[in-house]
């Protein structure tokens, strides 16, 4: 530390308050929308219109406590936990196979610790992967000689996240979380490795793969093919599958379209009244569109742009590679989820369950998203 040429100010004044303000607004807005979206169904199902609001409120309080503590813990501590983070993630995923795993809607994604708390290992794994990658990249760079650009280096970086993603997909049947974990890894690698060509090649392969899958789906027989193929066909022509596979998608489109420019007004959504089931989860953005109109939708998107931009600013102000990579990982996490969520809701990509950060209902997700903000805030304190 003494060797460092620059002076670091540890004052709180350097903390990124814009970022905090945006997050506070998003979380507050999220709670408001969760109440608006879920109150009708919660009233019918649980006889308590604030059922989901209360639960989300509890997770949010936990999340802010976590945020507060994490923002006060020097982020460099986390480097010591890199392997622990990875192992914990994997262990938690394997715990889903034990009686602790809870199966809902045919997928085992939750751990129930029998003390009134449930946990989604996939959400833990996202943070675990961010910490692990930031640390391992930092270590590789310290070795020097551009180890990071060798196939061995890339393998060291990419194999653990790939394994974790595969475990998430296989054990918890959660493709979207697997995609996010892998996406975070690729994004962090992209930032860490000076080259572009690998990523351009990867991008081309990905585009070609998507095109191939679409062609296979459209030329294949209508009733044949796998479950995911059918999902793709439903994506291409949702109105033809409006009663079964594209049901959720089409209901989301009804909500978005019927919002119009000005929206129906807060609380006035029709689609949330049983037409779009569990709208407080993945599809909450469509109800925001319906109630608050185009301007409401753009406000939310703008807030996420500010959030992502702020993360970028923090990452680039930091001279420390580990801190910078942590922030990049968090930024990638938010960006991927926001983009994929809005893309799913608007039927831009096939339907896969991805929540909208800070706004969708979900305890573990809120807790970890806020903890990640705590890390970013702590990094921001140590900027030059």
């Amino acid at each position, binding site marked *: 530390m003494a060797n460092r040429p620059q002076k670091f100010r540890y004052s709180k004044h350097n903390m990124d308050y814009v970022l905090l303000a945006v997050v506070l607004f998003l979380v507050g807005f999220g709670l408001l929308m969760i109440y608006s979206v879920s109150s009708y169904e919660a009233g019918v199902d649980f006889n308590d219109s604030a059922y989901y609001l209360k639960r989300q409120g509890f997770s949010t309080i936990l999340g802010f406590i976590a945020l507060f503590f994490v923002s006060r813990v020097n982020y460099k501590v986390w480097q010591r936990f890199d392997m622990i983070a990875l192992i914990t993630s994997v262990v938690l995923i394997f715990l889903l196979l034990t009686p602790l795993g809870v199966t809902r809607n045919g997928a085992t994604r939750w751990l129930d610790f029998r003390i009134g708390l449930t946990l989604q290992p996939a959400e833990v794994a996202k943070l675990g992967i961010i910490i692990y990658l930031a640390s391992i990249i930092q270590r590789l760079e310290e070795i020097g*000689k551009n180890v990071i650009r060798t196939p061995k280096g890339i393998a060291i970086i990419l194999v653990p996240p790939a394994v974790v993603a595969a475990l998430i997909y296989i054990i918890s049947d959660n493709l979207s979380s697997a995609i996010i974990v892998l996406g975070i890894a690729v994004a962090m690698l992209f930032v860490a490795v000076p080259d572009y060509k690998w990523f351009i090649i990867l991008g081309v392969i990905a585009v070609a793969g998507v095109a191939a899958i679409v062609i296979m789906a459209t030329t294949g027989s209508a009733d044949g093919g796998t479950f995911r193929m059918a999902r793709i066909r439903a994506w291409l022509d949702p109105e033809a599958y409006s009663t079964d596979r594209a049901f959720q998608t089409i209901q989301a489109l009804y909500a978005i*379209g019927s919002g119009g420019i000005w929206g129906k007004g807060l609380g006035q959504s029709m689609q949330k009244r049983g037409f779009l089931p569990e709208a407080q989860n993945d599809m909450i953005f469509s109800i925001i569109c319906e109630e608050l109109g*185009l301007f409401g939708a*753009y406000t939310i*998107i703008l807030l996420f742009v500010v959030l992502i931009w702020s*993360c*970028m600013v923090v*990452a680039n102000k930091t001279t420390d590679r580990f801190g910078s990579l942590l922030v990049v990982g968090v930024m990638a996490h938010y*960006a991927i989820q926001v983009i994929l969520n809005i893309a799913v809701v608007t039927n831009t990509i096939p339907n896969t369950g991805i929540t909208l950060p800070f706004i969708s209902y979900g305890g573990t997700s809120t807790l970890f998203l806020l903890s990640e903000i705590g890390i970013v805030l702590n990094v921001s304190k140590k900027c030059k």
Partner: protein
Amino acid sequence: MTIKNSAGRRNMTMQKKKTFVLCTLSILALLALSVRVGYLMILRSAHYTELAQLLHERERDIKAARGRIIDSTGTVLADNRTVCTISVIHNQIKDPEKVIEALCRELDLSEEYVRKRVEKYSSRERIKSNVDKETGDRIRNLDLDGVKVDEDYKRYYPYGELASKVLGFTGADNQGIIGLEVSYEEYLTGKKGQILTLTDAKGIELEGMGERRQEPQAGRDLYVSLDINIQKYATQLAKQAYKTKQAAGVSIIVMNVNNGEILAMTDVPEFDLNEPYVFIDEYSSLAEQPSANTQDLLNQMWRNGCINDTYEPGSTFKIITASAGLESGVVTLEDNFSCSGSILVDDRTIHCHKRLGHGAEDFVTATMNSCNPVFITVGLRLGSERYYKYFTQFGLKEKTGIDLSGEAGTIVHKLENIGNVELATMSFGQSFQITPIRLMTTVAALINGGTLVTPHFGVKAANEDESIVERFEYPVKEGIISEATSEKLRYILEQVVENGGGKNGYVEGFRVGGKTATSQTLPRGSGRYIASFLGFAPANDPKVMALAIIDTPQGVYYGGQIAAPIVRQLFENILPYLEEMDYN
């Protein structure tokens, strides 16, 4: 923890660049999605809004009031009565036991029936419809949660069976089943309104979310030419004859000879329009037989003999033979004839109703006597071809086009099948069949100077505020006979009433013309007759015509003795009335 090697430092600079690139790419992706969101919310908004609205709204029909039927005096003959439909909404019921108890009590239903519906999980369950308004109001005033009282219209006929076969009645959906209710359906029927309520996915109506209403449009009122006073009196007379003569049926038609407006039409026995599916006494015993076909019997009960059935007109048809004869010039009023009581046509002897014969008589007297051989002679003078030509010219082969459905057509020989015998029988109104309304319409044209009008009831359709929507027009055919012949005919027919067989039709103080008829129904020799009298007044300038037909009377069956008095009594009452009404 600075990076100690140079490659690492270089990579750090690169890393910042690439972080910026990653961030920019993400923001670009979000911008692209913003465009997508904008497209969905602006350009596709109308499409999805419409689909969503279809999904969210449940519609409930509001029945439109059916147009009334109003007679020429302004009396409402067919009206609407407010009735209520009681239904329950499962989710809104707070105290099921109280609801069940109250509905059983008020609607006089079994507890089992009500309980089943109250406890059924459905968005809306109908308990009972056509509940009278008082009961409906009482239930509404109980203010039970989940019990809905909807008002509805039901057709109501204030005069019960009056003109039942003319007016007709409506079915469950307020649509016309028979009579004028069918003919003027398009005017009478209104346009249904709708209440569009927002519901959640389970179909539960949302409170306080407002509802859209499309107001119903009431049907048009139909103004008809019937006159309730004349109709009532005609019905009374017909019923009287029906009872005293123990007849199978009695029909009376009163018509304006100059424009075809029908002032009264009755075909006793009539039925109660408010209970059209309840058999009247004449039919109830038939309906109880195991082999009875209820629908056939109902159709029979609803049948309007004046237009749906044909008969052999008999001597009233001599008016047509006389017209043809006079018009063609084969006979004049002064022509002398001699009746021996029968006439030989080819190899057939046809008797006069007076077996001893009428002796020497001129044509006027022969008509007064209703002498068959004279009319056979006139018919034979005309020859089948010419007779057939006049038959056609007088419109007898066509339907009248009256504005009631199911008018029967004329049944007549083909021209090539009319030999002398057929011609002879046709001359005095036998061996073919026409409807009473057909006979009247043709005779009206023959005595009014040759204008063949379309008999009808409908005068105009108007809105509730009496603004006219449409005044109905009917085809008229001029000049089917010359005015001169028409005048002669009026003279002869007045003579028939003044001094001849129709003297029972004479009305003190009025000039009445007419002709009687007594025809044996087929098969001949069954002893069953149809007695009729066709009269009109004033004889010199006819305005109104009445036809009374008694089907199968017991006892005396001569038209001159039983049908003519009916028309006389009718005229005695309605002629002063019509004069007072300045009827023309």
